[in-house]
């Protein structure tokens, strides 16, 4: 590892991403997707989130003691407290987001409404097949889909926010 080609850290290759990609090729590939953090732009690197030498958190995460702790160490607006909480955002952000990158907006692991319908098929509109016929007419599928209305999806402090529409 330590025959330095990098500016810092005495890495074998020029950037951290190149070194890590030697083994974690699938993760490095994800930074080239549409939704990504500023890794390929050079404003973040693998060690921004991970400490490869060891950490007290899971996944060698540098901050906190859970995946969510690590994410909200920068995205503190998502940490709460909230009156109404969306359970998976407390449990682990990676249920919905891929922090390494995804082809979907906001690094979502699947495209809404399909992503939301993995858990929400309650009666009426959540259980609808949003096929090509509805793409052109239903705001529940075009644009930002479900979160256009359910815009406080991580949590809400509005007394009518139990469905995250306020």
């Amino acid at each position, binding site marked *: 590892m330590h025959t330095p080609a990098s500016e810092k850290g005495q890495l074998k290759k020029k950037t951290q991403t190149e070194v890590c990609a030697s083994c974690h090729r699938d993760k490095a590939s994800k930074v080239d997707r549409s939704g990504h953090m500023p890794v390929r732009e050079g404003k973040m690197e693998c060690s921004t989130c991970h400490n490869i030498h060891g950490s007290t958190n899971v996944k060698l995460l540098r901050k906190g003691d859970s995946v969510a702790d690590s994410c909200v160490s920068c995205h503190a607006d998502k940490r709460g407290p909230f009156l109404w909480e969306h359970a998976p955002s407390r449990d682990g952000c990676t249920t919905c987001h891929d922090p390494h990158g995804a*082809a979907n907006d906001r690094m979502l692991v*699947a495209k809404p409404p399909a992503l939301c319908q993995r*858990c929400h098929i309650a009666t009426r509109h959540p259980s609808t097949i949003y*096929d090509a016929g509805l793409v052109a007419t239903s705001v529940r599928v075009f644009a930002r889909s479900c979160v256009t209305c359910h815009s406080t999806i991580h949590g809400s402090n509005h*007394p009518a926010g139990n469905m995250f529409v306020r």
Partner: protein
Amino acid sequence: MRHYTALALLLCALVPAAVSAQETSSSNTGSVDLGVRGSSLKGDAARYERYRDLGDGLFLETFRWRARSDGWYFVGAADHVARGDQRYRFDFAKPGLLKGWAQWDQIPMLLSRTTRSPYSTNLVGEFRLSDAIQTQLQGLSTAARPAAVQALVNGSAMFDLKSKRHSAGGALEYLPTPQSSLKVALKQTYRDGSQPSGGSFGHSQVVEFAAPIDHTLTDFEASAEIERGSMLFRAGYTGSWFKNDVTSVVFDNPLRATDISGTPSSGRLGLPVSSTQLGVNGMVSIKLPRKSRLTAYATMSTLKDDNGVILPMTSNTAVAVAAGSPERGTLNGEAQISGFNLNFTSRPSSLFSVNARLKYYDYDNKLPTFTATKKVAYDGNVSTPASPLHAEGFSLTRLNLDADFRITPKGPAALTLGYGRYSDERTHRIYEETVDNVMRVKLDTLSTGVISVRAVYEHAQRRGEGFDVNALIHANEQPGMRHFDLANRDRDRFTVIASFMPVMNWALNVSSAIGRDDYLASEFGLRDNNHDVYSIGIDGTPSEKVGLGVSYSYEDYRSLQRSRQANPGVQFTDPSRNWATDAADKVHSVIASLDLTDLGDKLDLRMSYDYNRTRATYEYITGAVADRTLPQEAIVPSTLPTPRALPPVKSDLTRGTVDAVYNINKRFAIGVSYGYDKYEVQDFTLDSQAQQTLTAGNNMLLYYTYAPYTAHTTWGRIIVKW
């Protein structure tokens, strides 16, 4: 101003250059890389720049300064000087005594240059339309409104939808003795700008607006560490203060000028409130006989909101009295977060080692119960729910145990057998507890110089206990729904990474990851989630002057989600209304680079190429899905209309750079760089075709879309070294 700043920094750079020219023994070294950049861009400028400032004109790409004096080391660095993505950093160290750094960094996030909105925002957090516009639209017939709303949007000026992080921070580490150290770190990040958000006035009318971002996060850490014989102690304090200056947004209803019951003239949305998290942590590590170590770590913190206000029931003045007031006016949110880790590692002989980890994590949400007996949906009507709404915070307790036993026989490979038990207890979810039992086997070849292989197979079984069907019924969900982050699941994963070095300075790397998740008790929800990833790459340095690498990877992700399209009543239990989404995401990517240095002792040539091709499909299937529907599911002919297939989501990114630097002498070099970026996208909800559908109905959207771009960028550079 930008140019003056860049020139001033260049002059600063040239001074030490001149000094070092006179002091040949000086340890003062550095470089500055500056020049002129010009771009030809066609398409989505925002998506091209994204987290960068790539404007044309003068640029100072990098400035580096390194010095050594009396045992002190100094490093100064500046990147993208005077640009929107600028970064400045200063490091210093006296080994064995003190080291530290300070940094100022800006990270822009440019989302769109083509968003448009008729809202005016004279007051932060208020999105207003003139009463005249609202009155005019209100007076139109239902049929005439959509065209009028779209004319209003189309007549609005475009604006940049963007935000920026401004981050300042620094850290110090002081070593009073070789066996002890004190560390402090402080970082403050201010983020301003806006992001797309939406609000609804009911199921057939939504608006979007550029929700303001105006918050500051301040993090402080301090710790002390001391080594005494075979023991290491560490104690630390952490503080995190989040301050949000905009905690609600008001947005006008384009179709209503005055409040009435059922239709408000505006809506109000809650945004996150300010909060503080303070904690302490401690660690003890003991070196034990026979190459063993025991480490214990504990942490405890408290998260509280800073007098966060619960908003009034509604912004609709016509129903505000009937709606009453919230049960309490402030959030009073609090959570106690605690954790404990115990690690034991031991390598008593060269043949055997053990690594065991116990991790406990508890998020105890102490939010006082909040009860709402009335609700004003969409700021419209006051309703009385059949049963009061209760807001109760989610709590979570995790206990993870991992143990790995590694056997290293006197042969070419090592075998590791591992076991993990991950227990999660949660409140207010469909399972009270889930337990994952994980078995794994790892095979590592020892260094042979020619080949190295690491293969891991893992089998995990997750099972839930204390299933609460009422949690689903209360939310009008199917009783057969199982949320996939908790659902019973069998997981198999296999990964292998191999490197072959048949000749000196050449390496062939291959890797594969195969995963299968079977949600074996989920009648509805995610049924399976599988992936196959393969990659191959070659790296070589055939000579000191040549380095190259090329790799290709293929990724295939697939999942099946099961649902039932139903209104309340007979449809709810009708299996003929079952359907599924068969989703697939296939990605091809290529990364290649070629470095040629010291060509003719003067020329450095570097080339890189990245290609990423993604195809995602969402196929709707009505009725049963062969081999992927639960055996106990009743199979009946579908009574749903045949769905119209969605078009695939396509995304192609191609990037290439050529960078040539001609070294005139040891101090000066000139260079020219060329960059090619091409992004192609087809997305049925966010691309240019979808833009036409954004005009549907009475919706007033921002036109936040995905669009392709092609960019050619050329840099002319001068590099000065000293």
